[in-house]
Every structure is written in C-alpha cells, then in structure tokens.
C-alpha cells in the first residue's frame, strides 16, 4: 500500500507518516501543492492525504488538477475548517473523505483504510471473527466460545464496528457518528455508557477481556490484553 501525504506542517506530516508506516503503508511526503501534484501524477498511490491550506497550489486545486488528468486515487482531505460549506467544497473538488484538524490518528487511519478498501472493491465478508468471538452479519448472531450473546441493536452495531477494525483504536467521535449518526458532542458520554453495556455482555462472563479502553483516545477490540 502506497500513501502520499501532502502537508506543509512537518510535525503533522511526520506524525501521520509514522503512524501509516506502522500500519504497513509505504509513505511519501510532499511539502507543497505543486510537488504533491507532481508526485501524485508521476507515481501510483493507493491513497492520498491532502491538506487544504498549502503553500503554492492549494489542496482543492491539487485534487481538481488530479481529477482533471483522470487520476482516481482516493483522497482524504485534511482541513482546519469544520464548516459544512468547506466540507461540501472539498468533496465537490473530487475529494473522497474529509477530516477536520485536530484529529485522532486512529480516526485518520480508519478513514484511510476505508478509502483503500472501497477503491479496491474487496468483497464484503458475511462473518467477522476476532479471537474466540464471531459475529454473523446475516443472521445477526454473536457467539463467544460457542456461547450465544444476546445484544441489543445498538450494542450489535458497536460490536460490528469494532470487529471490522480489530486492533485499531476507535475514538468516541467515530463511534458516535457510526452508531448514532451524530457528528456533534452530545455532552454526557453516551458512548461510555454503551461501551460499558457491551462490555457487560461481552467480557464479564469470560476471563479474558476483548474490549479495551485506551485512555484519552478511545476503544479497541483485541484478543490478547
């Protein structure tokens, strides 16, 4: 997997590049819009992460130029602006997804992987497995060590989300928007409450926990502690 980062801020670029390398990507970094466009045109990439505010050519015009040359590399737009208008403009310019700064790296990674998966057109699995846990997407049944777990729809939705990203930390914001379709902070932590309910059914009856809290970041599902 090859990823191109077009970002002028060295701290953010390094932080994202390091994270993506750890996740198995080969990463190239361009520090301005013109160099970014040149690389994106001359080399094949599976995904590009493009900042909107760039020296020289800005991110939106970069994407526009890229699409103008028929290059369909999926693009995740990074922006410090979070208004709906900016999001719409970014997607209209040909971006595939939009992430607002500041962001949790877990969220960026999840979005990048989703873009790559969507572009590669991999077949949807009907059954998810993590360790001794299986989730059947068709019958909507969940079993752990052969024991059937009785989950409510929202708990099922959360577990499915976690099982699609095993070992990846998912932030509260991501869970909120995935499970409830909410994009704002609802004040009281409804996510915490849902997670503790799921944990009650998923981990309480067994000796090894699967669902872990990563303090300050979010939650992760992984077989070993």
């Amino acid at each position, binding site marked *: 997997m090859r990823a191109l980062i077009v970002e002028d801020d060295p701290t953010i670029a390094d932080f994202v590049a390091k994270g993506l390398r750890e996740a198995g990507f080969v990463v190239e970094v361009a520090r301005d819009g013109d160099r970014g466009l040149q690389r994106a045109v001359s080399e094949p990439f599976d995904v590009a992460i493009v900042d909107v505010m760039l020296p020289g050519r800005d991110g939106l015009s970069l994407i526009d130029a890229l699409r103008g040359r028929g290059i369909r590399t999926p693009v995740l737009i990074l922006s410090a602006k979070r208004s709906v208008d900016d999001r719409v403009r970014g997607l209209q310019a040909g971006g595939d997804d939009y992430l607002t700064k500041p962001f949790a790296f877990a969220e960026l990674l999840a979005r990048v992987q989703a873009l790559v998966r969507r572009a590669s057109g991999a077949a949807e699995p009907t059954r998810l497995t993590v360790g001794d846990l299986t989730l059947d997407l068709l019958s909507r049944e969940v079993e752990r060590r052969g024991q059937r777990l009785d989950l409510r729809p*929202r708990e099922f939705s959360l577990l499915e989300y976690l099982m699609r990203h095993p070992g990846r930390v998912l932030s509260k914001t991501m869970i909120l928007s995935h499970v409830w379709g909410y994009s704002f902070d609802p*004040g*009281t932590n409804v996510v915490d*409450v849902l997670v503790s309910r799921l944990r009650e059914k998923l981990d309480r009856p067994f000796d090894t926990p699967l669902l872990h809290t990563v303090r300050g970041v979010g939650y992760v599902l992984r077989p070993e502690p």
Partner: protein
Amino acid sequence: MTIRRAIGLRLALWYAGVFITSSIVLVALTYALLAASLRQRDQQIVASTLRDYAARYDAGGLPAVISAVELEQRTGSREQLFVRVLGPGRDALFLTMPRAYARFDVDGLETDADGIRAEPARDRTAVLEVATARLPDGTVLQVGKSSDNREQLLERFRRVMLIVSGLIILAGLAGGAVVTHSTLQPLRALASVVTRIAATGRTDARVPVPETNDAMEDLSRSFNTMLDRIDALMTAMRDSFDNVAHDLRTPMTRLRGLAERALADGSPAAAREALADCLEEAERMQAMLDTLMDISEAETGALRLAVTDVAIAPLVEEVRALYEDVADDKAVQLEAQAPPDLTVPADRDRLRQALANLVDNAVKYTPAGGRVTVTADRDNEGVAIRVADTGVGIAPGDRERVFDRLYRGDRSRSERGLGLGLSLVRAYVHAHHGRVTVEDNGGGGSVFTMWLPQE
C-alpha cells in the same frame, strides 16, 4: 476632496448665476416699465396743454393763448414747454421755448399731421415730444416737451440700479457660497466621519442627521444604521473572541498543570498517566472550542441554517434513543412523545442538537427514580418542544442566567459539563427566531420550552 470642491464650486456658480440673472431681468423690466410710463406722462402733459391752449385760442384767439403762456411762465408752477402758433401760411405767429430747447431743430418740425411725435435733438441726447393740432381756421398749434427731465430721472435710476446690480451679484455669489456650504455640510460631516473611521478603525462615531427631510437626511440615517450594524457585529465578534479566550484559559491551565506535575514526578507511569489526561483534556478543549464557535456563529448571525420542514416526532425519538442508555443507567425514566403530523421549518441538525442538549441537561440533573419527559405541541406562537424533569430544579434567581455561557448554578457544580449546552440551545433557537424559557415544574424540577415560529 477635489471632487467635493468641484461640486461645491459648481453648485455655488449655478446658484449665483440663476440668482443674478433673474434679479437683472427684474431690474431691466422695472427700468423699461418706468421709462415707458415716464414717456407716457410727458405725452399726456403735452397733449393736455395742447388741448388747453386750443380751447383758449378758440375762445379768445392768439392773444388768449399768449397770455395763458405768459401766465404760466410767470407763475412757473410747471416746467416750461415749447409752444408755437403757426399761421395758415406756416409763418410763426408765436414761439416760446426754454433755452435748453435750442438743441432741437424746431423749424423742421412736422406741421401737417395731428398727433404726438418724438423729434430727436441734434445731439441725440434727448427727444422732443411734440403734440400738433390744426385748428379750424388753418392755424397750427404745437406744444412740445423735452425728455431731459425724465432722462435725468432715468439716469439717476440707472445709477442706483448699477449699484443695486453690483450688490445683487455680490449677494448672489455670497448666497451661492452659503447655500453650497450648508447643502454640502452633511456631506462634509459624512466624509469626515468616514475618514476618521478609515484612519482609526473605530466605528463609534456617528454622522449628525440634518432635519431637512431630504435625500441627505436619508443618506445620513442609512449611514448611521449601517454603522450601528457594523458596530453590533464588531462588538459581538470581539465579545466572543474575549469569551473564547477566557473560556479556554481554564482547560489550558489544567493541561499545563498536568504536564508540569508529570515532569516533576519523573516516573514513566506518571508520565503515561499525564499524557492520557492531557489527551482527554485536549479533547474537551476541542469540544469546547467547537461549541463556542457554534454559539458565536449563531449569535453573530453568521450561521447559515439549512431550513427544511422538520417532522418533530422522529426527531424527538432520535434524541430519546441517544440518551436512552444514559437515562437507564441512572435509573431515570426518559419518555418522549409528539403528534405524528407536527412539523416546523428548521435546520434539522441544529434543532436536534438543541433538543439533545436540553435532554442531556435534564437527565444529568435528575436523580435516580426521577423522570424526564419530552413533549411537543402547536400553539398560536408556533411549535413548542418541552423538556420537563423532576430534578433539583433551578432557583428563580438563576433562571435567566442558566443560558449564559459557562454559568453553572450552585446545585450543578458537582456535575461535570462544559457549561455551554444551554447557551448553544439559546443561540440556535434565537437563530431560528424562536425563544427558549425555563419554568418550575410544579413539584420540583424544571421545564425548558423551545418555541419555534411556524413561518
């Protein structure tokens, strides 16, 4: 500046031109009228004198005329006239005239036609108004009067008029200048205010509004209204910047404190702990900043609402579902119901967020065993969405202040929160031109009501 001066000069010249021309025309007309009436009077004098002498001649012949003329000259009550009596053979039987009349060629006077004629002097400085009458016996009687007198009068009049015209021109120019000055006064005031604002960036100056009931007054008023709006916007923006800065100071201080303590401790475990705390704090700051920006946008009118007809029942149900587990955990009963056909024009996301904040607040401050009820109905003010709880209630003195930024009543200190939720509710509801109130819920607890206009 140059343009304004050019306008001023043009206006002044126009004013003076119109004023002077009309005044001069008036003077000229007066002069012509005076000259004509003076001439008419002279002609009347010669005509009536001629009639008088003709009657005397009729009665007493030439001697009667002569004696009348001599009597006239002796008493001298009137200006002396030219009087001539010609016999049938056009020989002068009698002639008298003032010395000054020598300028007139009396010998060449027409004698064959009755009536009044004007005979110019040899030096053309005056005319002799001559009335001629042929009497039945062939005698010709002539009476003449020089225009000298009336010319003198007219000359004096002309001299006065010249002075008056000079004064008129001066008055015209001065008037033009004054009128222009006063007409352009509001413009100058406007220009000076604009210049001052451009130079200092302060928008608290206002243009004096002239009570002239004209375009200038309208312009000045509109300009002041515009300044008021800019001022309000600037103040609101400045305030929200101040508030944001102030509101972020507390979490920043906590952030600093966490990092400093971890550094001082030095152990890796403490560092890990502090880093996690810092991340959480950063997340809270981000949420706070987002909310503050939303409030500021809504309050300054910069928020663009995507208004559609929002069905209330599904909206209420969505919010209930969001807080279902939270309420359940606290053993608080959460119920929601709305008429299925109730809709209101609103931005669905913002309205949902406002309602979510109210429900969040209600669930948070309602103890175990309590109940939170969301209802909606239509009244003549519009659509009312109510969130009632059986919680601790809000002291009457706090009811207005709960909507203020970061205000947290004494009874809510123990609960964690940003203190911005209700401010956001109010800002969003106001952006929808609605209002939000809080009242006592009978047996303890509070009722928050959002009214949204139907139009």
